[in-house]
């Protein structure tokens, strides 16, 4: 590691607030961009599965 201690790495010569907030915001944005399609796909899949299960139940009832 370049820094002597964790505290020094957090401070970054007085610029720590800037550096860490920049990384924090970036990772927050990227996480949202990652999670959003994953969650949406999952809920869509659940809806599709539910509907196809209901349809197969209906067709079984008919026969």
């Amino acid at each position, binding site marked *: *590691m*370049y*820094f002597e201690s964790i505290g020094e*790495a957090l401070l*970054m*010569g*007085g*610029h*720590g607030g*800037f*550096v860490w*907030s*920049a*990384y924090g*915001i*970036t*990772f927050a*944005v*990227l996480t949202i*961009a*990652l999670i959003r*399609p*994953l969650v*949406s*796909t999952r809920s*869509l*899949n659940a*809806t*599709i*599965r539910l509907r*196809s299960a209901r349809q197969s139940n209906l067709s079984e009832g008919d026969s």
Partner: protein
Amino acid sequence: MWRIVHQFGSPPWVYRFCDRVIPWLLPLTVVALLVGSAWGLLFAPTDYKQGDSYRIIYIHVPASVVALAGYYVMASAGLVSLVWRVKLADTAMRAAAPIGAAYTAIALVTGAIWGKPTWGAWWVWDARITSMLILFFLYVGVMALFEAYENKTIAARACAILSLVGTVNIPIIYKSVDWWYSLHQPASIKFTGSSAIDTSMLYPLLGMIVTFYVLFALLMMLNIKQSLTQEYAHSAWLHKRLND
């Protein structure tokens, strides 16, 4: 060769492709992001002029570079959709726009945060930041145009035309903003460290640029898979795939 092209036009094939690639690309990208950030944050040496605030460039520069490249990805998809009427190209174009907008937003915010300790102001009318701001509006314009149309097939065609017009204009915008900046700003404000950068700083930067490219591809796949699920919710191949 043509077989591959045809496969990329087939929704079930692309869906399966995304399905296979995402499970290993997702953890790989997350790890690469964490390693790259740790390298840039903790292991790369300090810039003797700017101090440690320079470490923001490990996300600012990759985000800016890939944001610009992303516009061309979007416009290429738009061209394919306009010329060959490939429906999947519409999906790809729509998938790229919000990611590009997110990247430009990251570049702008990190640029502002980097500017405060470096230039003493949150916002400086620097050529790169100004170009990035315009690029952000170009992305937002494409997204807003897509939302404005009820018929999404027509919306995609409109967005394709707009993004192609943007493609022709982006080099002109970048050149003119550079010109404007070089005429108006004193020479004292300069982006240091980009010309003669030491390899101990360059390697983590290159690593992060590659990682941001891969992340862009991953996010596109996730978005494409999401829109395919939405679009083909009633088709047999998707039901079969989900029930397997």
